[in-house]
């Protein structure tokens, strides 16, 4: 097999690099105000949703409980106030920027909501406690609620939380503030880069960002050679569009 190791210096153009950038039609403020999966899902223009939610039973199922809710509604498992703090945090973790849209537009919030339903009350409580502590920490150390801080101050507060520096501030973090940060980060990454079946990675924005060539059932030697020659077209589908697979937990 050939090496095919030469790095293509110019990455392939990103779907949202072009003039029709998704976020141009939705302001950041709209998304954050909408505060949640419901809002983010509802605000993405129909033309950009492709055919997924309309025709795919899988993605329909994935969005149940979020897309049906009115814009501005909180997540199923959190209050409106908690949801808006979480939305602001997730937006700083993977922001929308010149490289493309971020975790909010990927609907990482919808993913987190569904995951909390799956994991149960203890995890919901961890989110509630952590989000309230983040908000208090912002007020005590930067003089305003987290959602009211500038992006720069939000980032510096989040660095304190990530490194555990906010743990001892008496604002209500249980154990290390870093545990809360890592939990949210891990779920945000799952909701941005995981299979869209679970409600996140909407329009495959996560996979596009890292040039993941996609879910395939069989990758032949020729496919691998094409991949190494930068000639393999990315596949964009959920594993569950391959109808052979059972969803949910095994029996």
């Amino acid at each position, binding site marked *: 097999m050939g090496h095919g190791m030469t*790095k293509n210096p110019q990455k392939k153009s990103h779907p949202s690099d072009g003039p029709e950038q998704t976020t141009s039609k939705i302001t950041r403020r709209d998304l954050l105000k909408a505060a949640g999966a419901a809002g983010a899902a509802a605000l993405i223009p129909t033309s950009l949703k492709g055919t997924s939610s309309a025709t795919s039973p899988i993605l329909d199922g994935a969005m149940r409980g979020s897309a049906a809710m009115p814009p501005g509604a909180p997540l199923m498992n959190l209050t409106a106030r908690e949801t808006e703090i979480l939305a602001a945090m997730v937006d700083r*973790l993977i922001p929308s920027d010149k490289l493309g849209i971020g975790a909010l537009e990927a609907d990482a919030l919808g993913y987190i909501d569904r995951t909390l339903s799956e994991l149960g009350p203890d995890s919901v409580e961890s989110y509630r406690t952590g989000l309230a502590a983040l908000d208090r920490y912002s007020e005590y150390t930067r003089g305003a609620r987290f959602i009211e801080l500038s992006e720069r101050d939000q980032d510096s507060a989040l660095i304190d939380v990530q490194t555990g520096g906010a743990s001892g501030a008496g604002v209500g973090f249980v154990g290390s503030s870093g545990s809360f940060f890592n939990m949210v980060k891990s779920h945000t990454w799952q909701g941005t880069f995981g299979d869209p079946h679970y409600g996140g990675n909407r329009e495959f924005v996560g996979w596009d960002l*890292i*040039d993941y060539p996609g879910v395939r059932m069989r*990758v032949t030697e020729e496919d*691998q050679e094409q991949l190494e020659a930068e000639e393999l077209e990315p596949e964009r589908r959920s*594993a569950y569009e391959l109808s052979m*697979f*059972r969803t949910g937990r095994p029996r």
Partner: protein
Amino acid sequence: MPRQLRSTDVVIVGMGAAGGVAALPLAEAGLDVVGLEAGTWLDQRDFAPDEIRNNYRDWPMLVKKCENERPTSRATSATNANRVGGHPMMNAVGGTAVHYWAQSWRLNPWDFQVVSETARRYGRSKIPANSTVEDWPFGYDELEPYYDRVEREIGVSGQAGNVSGNIDLKGNRFEGPRKRPYPMPPLRWTGFLETMADAAHSLGWHPFPGPAAINSERYDGRAGCAYHGFCSKGGCPVNAKNSPHLTTIPKALDTGNLRIVTQAHVTTLEMDGEGRVTGVNYVVGSEEYFQPAKVVLLACYTYENVRLLLLSKSSAYPDGLSNNHGQVGRHYFSHHQGAAVSALFPFDLKSWYGLPAQGVAIDDWADDNFDHAGHDFIGGGNLWVMSDRRPISAASMSTYGNGRNWGSGWKQFIRENADRSHSSYIQKTTLPYEDNYLDLDPMVTDELGLPVIRITAQFKQNERAIAEFTQNRMEEWYREAGAIEVTRGGLGNSMGISTHAYGGTRMGHDPETNVVNPWGFSHEAPNLGILGASVMGTSGARNPTLTSQALAWRSAAHLIENWEDASG
């Protein structure tokens, strides 16, 4: 009162990698075999290529008897044991082999003779003073026919390096002589793996493709590997990963002599006054059963083999079954799977479509394959470079010191580097020591109220020295291949819970220091056999599954040949 079932010839506790293999020769010999399995049957429809399902929610491993009995661990007896982390061992027909990496190695000849070979070459004092290591009761040649048989029965792909003494440098020149090549060629390589092999050659090393219980081509009616990239902790949707539930178990069922009871949670073994085992107690839901048997084969994972013995007390065995010499739980050790080395390359590795068993191995620094005269340790490590990447884990990669791991700066970094990082897997010799052992935890119980295993074990100077030495070799290799950043994990302290756990029911001639005899049967209860890596006395620098399967086949063959004696 448990419901008394009809007696059977053999009951096997656990239909996993070892028990699922032993069932075949027994059933083919015409013995009535009952296989008790805590899990259920899973099939390819349960194995979606879905990273969230496999790697973040652990759904393939859902039947969680294993999870509820997860051991606690501590470094030494001076500290309290904690229960931390999850554990990928699973209950199912096929056991953890349903989703394992399927690297399918034979041990090297040195692993069977660590004490005598070390004494011969360097003097006895080279062996760490506190180690309880013994030679195996037999050498590599004794196990070779069983390795050969299992490689063919389940299907192993690989490149032979030594067929009857003829060295082939495309394979592992350090392996013991094998009668025949592997039944299938090795899994294919990618461009990056070729690059790593080239770099190893420039260093004067001997790279080769590792062996895998994964079809590299159609075999025995099942498909070849699809290289779809979701093999790690995932079952195979095309049935190319050769778990017993696809290989030996269906053949054993076809004889009509094997019956499998699923969701059977075994609680204890029963003994008579003379010390013979009479059968097995198990629970299905809230129903209790007693399965009488002439012979019991314990074939769980190491922790559960030891736990069931310690939980099964009687007048003949007041400290637990087969524990009248105090050896159950002793000589415990696990592979040092930490102390990793990772590297960042200035080019894409194109490793999205691979699997952990597809890779380049270096055995030059394992076992006694190099002169240890100038080193303060015995043993070594096998360096393994594989092709395995999925999107969430790729996006969660280290930034190698290039700023924080979130935000716009990170986005820029990950867009460039998501496919440029690599983590090696270095399996290293671990010795057994006097003060590393398993016992029952005094505080923590499973959902039935039975104590779980407590691991008291620590990597010692020998293991830490190997870790540092092999990290140096790995960094050399990465740098030779063009890596621009290299990071290392710590050298290790507490062993913790492991997927490569050995000992606790060690095999050997001497009943004073071993639980089972050289055939894998108890020194104390003659109709009790123990299968799995819990009988192994040395770790080697490679995965244990094929060796435990070869040993299981050998124990079964011995039982068949000596049935009249063994069944009493």
